[in-house]
């Protein structure tokens, strides 16, 4: 099972490789793209991209020098006909440079790249929302070698898909991506903070009503208010516990470390650390955390031992107990809490 980590600068490659990443991925936006299409990015991220083909070529060389592969992200939700041609040109250049894989979401672009560059290794982005084996087969028939599952899948679903399509690699999220909505089904932009930021920060007031026109009962209104309060708490966890870290810089937030034994047992080929736009320190700490679990698994640790190690890394026992930080909270039920509930504060209980 490979560890997949993001980079946004060439200087990040050596430390991330040394920390234990096997595969790296990046974005790159040529200036011509911005000028032609008047869109800041070819991959949904206006920031966190390499700035030129020359930088991309240097990044590929650096990754290979340090024993990693480098993938290029082309994962806008959908590309127009002109954009498909331009993105295929980017893919062609990347492959010619010796780049290892293209991470693509739009099936039209996948088909175009597969036809133009049959030698290219294509990974289906999580933005494609491929959540079943039939979808994986569809993308495999287009020429994809790997499917990155969307963030919100269960362990059982991930492992079922991997078992049904053994000829297609499956990658699953393991750290840091906090979007509330499904990436492939969210048609918004991350506005600057002063204009609202991501829509899922949820700066909305809610005015509930019965859809059939009946007034809400006082009891239901109270329950909805309590549910909203729990949701706000969950949202805080989802957004990396207020974007906090430990004193050593280890990030809190969405995490699937305790699930790595199940993911490995389920033949998941790779685990993904998200956060191309994040600071280098966060990426490095993230790789170190995942690598610690990877090494424990290699050494024969069982699921309970992995959970003990994972929750002790930051440490994050109180946060972990809530389950709100988990990509795969079912592991808490399956493996039991790593610490006695009586030792935990009230904060995470609802």
């Amino acid at each position, binding site marked *: 099972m490979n560890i997949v980590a993001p980079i946004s600068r060439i200087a990040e490659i050596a430390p991330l490789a040394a920390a234990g990443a096997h595969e790296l991925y990046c974005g790159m936006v040529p200036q011509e793209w911005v000028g032609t299409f008047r869109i800041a990015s070819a991959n949904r991220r206006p920031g966190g991209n390499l700035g030129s083909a020359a930088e991309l070529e240097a990044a590929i060389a650096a990754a290979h020098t340090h024993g990693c592969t480098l993938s290029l992200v082309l994962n806008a939700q959908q590309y127009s006909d002109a954009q498909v041609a331009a993105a295929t040109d980017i893919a062609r250049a990347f492959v010619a440079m010796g780049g290892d894989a293209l991470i693509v979401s739009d099936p039209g672009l996948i088909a175009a790249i597969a036809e133009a560059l049959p030698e290219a290794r294509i990974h289906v982005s999580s933005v494609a929302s491929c959540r079943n084996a*039939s979808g994986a087969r569809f993308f495999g028939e287009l020429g994809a070698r790997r499917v990155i599952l969307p963030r919100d899948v269960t362990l059982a679903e991930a492992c079922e898909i991997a078992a049904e399509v053994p000829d297609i690699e499956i990658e699953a999220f393991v750290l840091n991506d906090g979007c509330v909505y499904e990436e492939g089904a969210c*048609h918004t932009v991350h506005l600057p903070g002063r204009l609202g930021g991501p829509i899922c920060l949820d700066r909305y*007031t809610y005015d*509930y009503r019965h859809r059939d026109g009946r007034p809400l009962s006082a009891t239901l209104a109270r329950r909805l208010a309590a549910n909203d309060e729990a949701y706000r708490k969950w949202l805080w966890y989802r957004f990396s516990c207020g974007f906090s870290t430990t004193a050593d810089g280890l990030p809190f937030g969405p995490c699937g470390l305790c699930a790595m034994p199940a993911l490995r047992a389920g033949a998941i080929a790779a685990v993904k650390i998200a956060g191309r736009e994040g600071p280098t320190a966060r990426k490095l700490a993230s790789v170190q955390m995942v690598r610690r679990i990877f090494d424990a698994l290699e050494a024969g640790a069982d699921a309970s031992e992995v959970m003990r190690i994972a929750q002790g890394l930051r440490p994050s026992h109180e946060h972990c107990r809530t*389950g709100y930080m988990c990509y795969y909270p079912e592991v808490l039920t399956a493996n039991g809490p790593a610490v006695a509930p009586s030792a935990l504060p009230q904060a995470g209980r609802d």
Partner: protein
Amino acid sequence: MDRMTAPELAVSAVTPKPLGWLAAAPDERLAHWREVLEDDALAAWIAPLAPTHLYIGSEFCEYLMPSPRTLDQALELAADAGLRPVLLTPIAAPATLRELAGLLPRLPDTAEIVVNDWGVARFLLEARPELPRAAGRLLCRVLKDPRLSGPEWAHQCRHSLDSQPLRALLARLGLGRIEIDVPLLAESDSLADLPAGAGVHLPYSYVAKGRMCRPGALARRGPERFAPGRPCQKECLSFSAATARAGADGDAGTRHVGNTVFGRHRHAVGEALREAVAAGRIGRLIVPGERL
């Protein structure tokens, strides 16, 4: 609108609802649409149209796939009303595909299916290839952030359905029609160059959906409260929320229903839509059959 340019009209509902209003007097039908659409001008435009299709199920949530019994009821309702039934399907987890497989034999040859998952499209190509299928609005992706209002966003809010590779894939999968949401901005030209017979949803466009469901968490506790794949009591069928941001007067109106955020179309977009319908560019209008 004259008979030559009148599009098909589909009425959509998660579960079967009485259709007695179909045979009601014009003023009663108008009252029905006013209540459902909460827009007098839109109601007046829709009311003279005769519904042609009944959409059943959900594009947004796997828990809202109809049970076999519910589907049978919907099919009976559609047949009694002389409407063609259309099964809506969501992004599918493995279990959702199994449920769908159980429903397919119940669909008559007159039925259609709206597909929002490439895996579902591939599955249907093998399971019921003879049924007409449309690519739903989750496959036909368009930027529609209701917080955007300026014309500077228009070019980004245009659809990308001119993509020849994408159109080739739709054809290969037997997805003979496409459906999109009413566009966010009238300036975005999003209703131009649509494939023939395109369907447009109104008055709400879906903005974002999660697998996490806030109202669905109402009856749940513990670590998995907001996690995907948990039991659901379908609270979204009972209530929804009008949502607003303080000081954001330019926002399109939004409503949160279950796991989905909907944006309501702005007046100018409604005008653009009517022009597109008058010009014969829209094959089908799809409106909710119940109040959101």
